[in-house]
């Protein structure tokens, strides 16, 4: 595993230099924080490459926390829960994750590829988060079945994530970015410093053959879709053939479900009032009826 990491470290830097919209220098100039509220996402975390000097907001943040630099499991779990919340808020297309029942540090996931070379691929994977998160290495992503891909280890199924996050920086790097990255590699093929040299060579030299190998790989993965989850966990993601008795109802629920607060008091008093006209900051700017004062 070690050579694997060291290898990807170098590769990662080069690769991102070449492929991302900007080099590290540029990113330094505009460090991007995850913007929770925005719908549009950067295709790949721009801040993936470590910046030697943290940008000012971050430095202030970190400085004040100096005395309590270590986090107990207590904070760890909430941090992971917060990460998970961020993932949900990002609404990543075609990606679904679920933390395991046994450990918050292990997340099960599945990714649906909807177009491109890997179209129709359904790849299950597991995210392993280092237990010294967020101060450790970046999370690992391991596909259940090694997908034929230059950046996926043909034996272990591990995706080369490190090249995109060669140093994990809390506050800047988030797990949703890793997932985003895991999706992107299937749309933008990168053959530099591959974990699967065969795939890389084929992609560069004989795309047709590469394509057919990919198709085979996708078929293989999909044929194992209904297998028992590799890891035995109550929350592991498992597929089963469509069973109307079970799935129709679940589907219906998914479409109709409206989340409401838990234990919302019955007969709650009027609340959540607003008479502010959008765009205004004046109270009662949204007039409903005339009131002569």
């Amino acid at each position, binding site marked *: 595993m070690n050579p694997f990491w060291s290898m990807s470290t170098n590769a990662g830097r080069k690769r991102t230099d070449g492929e991302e919209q900007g080099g590290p220098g540029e990113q330094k100039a505009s460090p991007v924080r995850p913007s929770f509220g925005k719908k549009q996402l950067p295709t790949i975390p721009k801040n993936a490459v470590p910046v030697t000097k943290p940008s000012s907001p971050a430095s202030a943040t970190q400085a004040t926390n100096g005395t*309590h630099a270590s*986090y107990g499991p207590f904070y760890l779990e909430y*941090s992971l829960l917060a990460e998970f919340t961020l993932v949900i808020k990002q609404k990543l297309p075609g990606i679904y994750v679920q933390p395991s029942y046994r450990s918050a540090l292990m997340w099960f996931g599945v990714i649906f590829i909807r177009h491109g070379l890997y179209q129709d691929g359904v790849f299950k994977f597991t995210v392993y988060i280092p237990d010294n998160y967020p101060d450790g290495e970046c999370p690992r992503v391991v596909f259940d079945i090694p997908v034929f891909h230059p950046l996926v280890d043909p034996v272990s199924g591990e995706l080369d994530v490190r090249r995109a996050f060669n140093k994990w920086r809390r506050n800047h790097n988030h797990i949703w970015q890793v997932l985003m990255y895991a999706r992107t590699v299937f749309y933008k093929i990168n053959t530099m410093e591959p974990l699967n040299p065969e795939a890389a060579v084929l992609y560069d030299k004989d795309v047709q053959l590469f394509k057919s190998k990919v198709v085979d790989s996708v078929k293989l993965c999909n044929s194992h879709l209904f297998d028992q989850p590799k890891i035995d966990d109550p929350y592991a993601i498992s597929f089963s053939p469509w069973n109307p008795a079970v799935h129709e109802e679940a589907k219906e629920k998914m479409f109709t479900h409206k989340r409401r607060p838990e234990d919302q008091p019955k007969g709650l008093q009027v609340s*959540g*009032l607003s008479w502010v006209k959008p765009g205004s900051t004046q109270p009662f700017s949204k007039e409903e009826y005339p009131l002569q004062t």
Partner: protein
Amino acid sequence: MSWLSRITPRGTGGRTDRNAAPSSPCTADPETCLMVFENHWRQVSWVLEQRDSGAGGADDLTAVRNHTDQMLCLLAEERPAGGDSDPPAMGPILQLVSSENILERLVQWHIRRGLDPDSQMALLKLFEMLIGQSHQPLLQHTSVLQPLLMLLGACVDPQFGCPSNLEASLVLLLNQVCVSMARQPAVLELLFRCGAVQQGPTNLLIFSLLVPFIHRDGVLGQQARDALLLVMATSASNHAVGRYITENSYFCPVLATGLSALYSSLPRKIEVRGDDWHALRREDWMGVPSLVLFMNSLEFCNAVVQITHPLVRCQLLDYLHNGFLVPVMGPALHKSSVDEMIASTAYLDLFLRSITEKSLLKTFLRFILLHRHDNDTILDTLLTRISSNSRLCMVSLSLFKTLLSFNCEDLMLQLVLRYLLPCTHVMLSQRRAVRETDLYGKSADKFLSLIPECCRITTAPSGEREEEPAFWGKVLGSPTSESPVHPRPSTPSRLALFIRQQSSGGAGNPSPSSGLDNTPSSPRSSVPSPNSPMHQQPDASDAESGYLEYLRDARRGIELCSWACRNWSAPYDGENPSPNAAPSPPPPPTSNPSLSMVPEHFSMQQRGGLTDAAQQRAAVVAAARAEWSSSERNSGEWDVTITKNCISLTPRSKKRSLLPSSIPMQPSSLPSSTTVPLLGTEEPTGSHTAPHRALYNGTGQVDERVDSSDGGMEVKKVKRDADVTDGDSSMNGRVGTGSIESSLTLQGGYRDFHTASTTVKKPAPSQVQSNMLPQPQPQRSPPILQPSSQECNPSEGQRSTSTSAPSTADTTLTTCSTHGLESVESLIEELLEQTPSEPQPGDSNGQGISIEAFHQELRELEEQVKARKVHTRSFDEFSQDPLTASPGANRADEECPPLEPEQGGAGESKTDGMFSPARPLGQPLAQPYIGPFMTVLFSKLESMMQNSLYVNILLTGIVFQLACYPQPLLRSFLLNTNMVFQPSVKSLIQVLGTVKNRIEAFAAVHEDFPSMLRKARRFLAARGKLDWADSPTAVPPLRRSDSLVKSRKPSLGDLILRHTNSPTRARHAAQAALAHVRDGGQSLHSALFRGVVAGTGASGLEKQAEALRVKNTVYCAVIFSEFLKELAALAQEHAVAMPFPPSQGTEE
């Protein structure tokens, strides 16, 4: 086909029974009934015809009545004739009644004959019986409706209404009519049209007749309101009726102005004994008839608004605003007497809690937010009350708690958000951080780290505890002690937290829920928990482990709040609305809203001239004494205040906070109270004044509570009966001596504490200096001050004359005192001396001035001085680099009296410049200002140690509520401990840091602190359990306050709301007050000598005073620690909270 032919099919069965009520079997057969009816009618009609021809007497009347009774009974019992028609065909008797127009002829006969009340009553009852019991719909037949309307018209004089003896029958009849109308909406139309024909175009008679009974109490009023509601409901979609009601009836004005009338009969003073009382519960007002009456009518308004036609709703809301809120509620809230303020605030709170209709609530909120009374919005006025003394503060806090519970954007905008919108409170570079959440628990960690070391004690070994709490407890106790390499969390149970996320996020399939049931974090586990987890915890160590409960509480709070806010117009995240587009919020008030009360308070003086002024003062004094009695042992509290003020100026960093350099604050501020009339006019009061208010802050109340439940810390209330029984004259005589004594002892008390703090804290040299500094201040002479008072508006000027007494007292004081406390004392003295021997029951009605009014005045005097100080300080802070400055020392310098002579010479506005000559004038206004609400909450928080337990519980509850709001601007302001604010903006964490240091300093000098802390926890836990066991259901969402309220088992209905007009009572109050002044003096006196004359034996009073102080602090320590956990939990939960999408407008 005749009715006879239709009656025969009776034998065929079934059809005739179709509409039969199963409970009343029809015994007689219809044919027989008809024959009997006809028989009666023949005899009656004979009489009617006779009468028509002129004759007739009492016998006729009796005969007609008897026959009519029989006839109508038969009619009522008749079943519809069956058939498939809808409405069902008339029964034979009804047909006969219609065709012969029997009822109309009967009524006309009566009317022509002259309706005596007896007949009226009989007829009303008869019709009521008929309509109420009839088995077939009657009112849709004009042959029934017309005579009914005729009768009603005859019974009610258009001018004088209905004779009182008929009221009950009339209302009952109308109620019945409305009930059947509600069943057959067509009747409404008919009524409307018939009415128009009969009564002219303007009368929906049924309706008009009911209106006068809207506000009646008892069954009658209820029936009338029910009936009206039925009309409203039936006519909700009938535009014509809607128009009729708004244009041709007095319904809305009667309803609204009726509320005004009812309000004016409410008790002006709410008398409660419970030290924790702060809001009217149902049990409280059910025993107060006038309040019940009002609430019934308010409920009725609410119901009308809910169901009525939009036209009516609009008109009613309009009238409520302009006919009740503005002319009645507004002035009521601005009453000069504190008692009345308390009452009106509590009423408003109650009203707001009772309203359920959105548009009605909007009317109230609009009034509160926008209506200006004497230039201040109601909201501003209410805000200033938070900083007042105990009861008014608590009632006000309760009101704001209610307001916050609405999650109303408009309110939050005015209260907080508009001040945060421009983002000027954060450093420019920090603006992006506004939206960050506490991803890694750093803020939570920071909050938890502020739990004072002395509060981390645990009583029991944690061996027996389950793994889970122990784990949490451990982590909480020492977040830093964890090794850098963390074991992977081994307990899957807590991961149940994820479940909620999964179900909402659309990620993944439904998860097995096995093994979740017993997890502490499972959201749905077990029984509903009490509102505040800390109540559950029996002892200290358990309290430590209650963190999971806090997390759950926090999550619940955040979820409910963000759900409620999902339809707000903007996210308030620092970008939308744009900080640049945001209108700059109002600057700190230049005129003190609370001051506006004072001129009003003394308005009599204005009118009455000097002699009256003297009387007024006397009244104030009497009131003041009463206040003393009500908040017993205030004097014991004074040195506490000083203590607190010493530290109140503590700078941000922990190291500095213990510097006693802040001590000069107190001395300098108090003496300057004499200068108030001129100085205070320009500065905000709400801010930074709380420390002084703590002087009066619910201290005596602690006694009561402790008396009842905590033997260990018990302090007996000592009523000086001997003193009280003294005659008035003797009492008056004592005033002089007593007050001198008290001033001396106060001085001593202060000094005593001062030395104590010195020894403990190893003060910096500056403290010594500060001790001396205040001296020059009192020497400011009144003449210098006068000019500036002319700058004030007339009322201010008036007030300044009214308070001129203190300044003269001041001069005498300067000779003998070295610090400022005396000035307040002297003010009291002065006032006492001018008291006539017979204490005045108060002003003209005995209510204008209350005990608390006097405090109010004192407080304002101090406030103004304080405000000036704040001014100074903000300059100070503004100029300093936050990292290098030593605010404590700096302030000590800046606030030291040498500056003040200058100030005295110049007007307030000019002195601004003098305080900080380097800066241009007006700069302070440009400083970021977080608004009066936050300011007053923070200053109240800062003085937590002096607040009573109940104030603290309410206060922290409100901050918790605020911190639940998901809007990033507010969330980051309160919970992001990493944000860097502008130097002049105090952060919550700074405030809490100050409190922490104070508590630790206190604990350091009290060896028995740990045991006291345990006792306090045990008491709170026991009390919490009691509260909870009381009634777990039907708790309005008032969070903690409820448990407090609930703990007062006996209903207050009989205790509260008694007028205090009785001169005897006023006198007693005054006597008691005086006794307390003396007591206080004595206790302070002994306190003075405690250090000097060691071992002379501390008096009981001294112990009491000390115990009080200690108690407040110990309870504060408990609350404070729990509060920090709450905040930490909130910070964490915000990071994992999922927003709710706005509703699609379906559910509004």
